[in-house]
């Protein structure tokens, strides 16, 4: 990408880009499109689990895509996955901090009168011990239970679980994406698994 290897120059085009450079740019554009197409749904699910809001999740994923395309798309393709998750997790952390400030302000103005209204989100899911009509319904129910349990985790535990278990990133990559040490990743994952076992029970899924 750095040099122009083709002797044929396309005159009259913006910047008089040589043919080789234009073809390389097109290849990279297609590669970026393929990469984002392969990752966008999983990224959305991650952001959705973290925020609990579809619109917020879409905004976060869109921001991460734009940032990758604008700043890092010229880096080697092998680095895109780690870079994308790094950007996305950073955006999620920023969102989480803003949300915490908003919640504190809301609580400050609302007072402690609504404290008793909070319910355990797990209680809202139907009892999974009753026999399911078919596998599909059982799968959906298990998925809903998992999602609620994941949302109840502290953000760092949630990130460690999703990146290590779902994305199958190694400890170093996860630490880079989360912006913390490798030891912290191990601790967060261990605690996340403990909490999930307690919450979901032995008979899940």
């Amino acid at each position, binding site marked *: 990408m750095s040099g122009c290897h083709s002797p044929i120059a396309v005159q009259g085009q*913006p*910047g008089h*880009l040589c043919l080789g450079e234009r073809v390389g*740019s*097109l290849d*990279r*554009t297609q590669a*970026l*499109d393929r990469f*984002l*197409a392969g990752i*966008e*749904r*999983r990224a*959305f*699910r991650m952001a959705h689990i973290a925020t609990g809001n*579809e619109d917020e999740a*879409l905004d976060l*994923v*869109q921001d991460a*895509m*734009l940032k*990758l*395309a*604008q700043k890092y*798309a*010229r880096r080697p393709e092998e680095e895109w*996955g780690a870079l994308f998750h790094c950007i996305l997790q950073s955006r999620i952390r920023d969102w989480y901090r803003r949300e915490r400030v908003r919640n504190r302000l809301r609580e400050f103005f609302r007072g402690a009168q609504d404290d008793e209204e909070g319910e355990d989100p797990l209680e809202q899911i139907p009892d999974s011990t009753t026999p399911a009509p078919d596998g599909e319904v059982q*799968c*959906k129910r*298990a*998925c809903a239970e*998992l*999602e609620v349990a994941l949302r109840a985790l502290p953000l760092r535990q949630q990130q460690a*679980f*999703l990146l*290590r*278990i*779902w*994305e*199958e*990133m*190694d400890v170093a*990559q996860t630490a880079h994406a989360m912006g913390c040490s490798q030891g912290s990743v191990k601790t967060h994952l261990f605690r996340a*698994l403990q909490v*999930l*076992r307690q919450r*979901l029970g032995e008979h*899940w*899924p």
Partner: protein
Amino acid sequence: MNKRSDEQPDPLATAAKRLLDHSVQELDRKTVLALQRARVNAVSRFSARRPWLQWAGGVALASMAALAVTMWLWQANSANHSHLLLEDLELMQSPENLELSEDLDFYDWLADGTATTG
């Protein structure tokens, strides 16, 4: 993404991974279309971006800064010597001086000293 082959597969982790993979396929059409739009937008930003534009912008900015510094220095110098420049200009433009410089015979006569001796 590397496989974690050094560890025993955790049943909970395995089941969670399977369910999360399944949930990705269950996304509604509206969300999938919104994600596609976001992707097309991001890719189009990349393809519209040209690296030489970054250089061009930098060069233009540096040129403007250099021009501004040059003009500032020139103004500072011209403020100190402005009276000399004005005097030179006045001398050059004076019709009297121009006539004197053209009358070379008169200068010769003055140099010979004929004007004083008689």
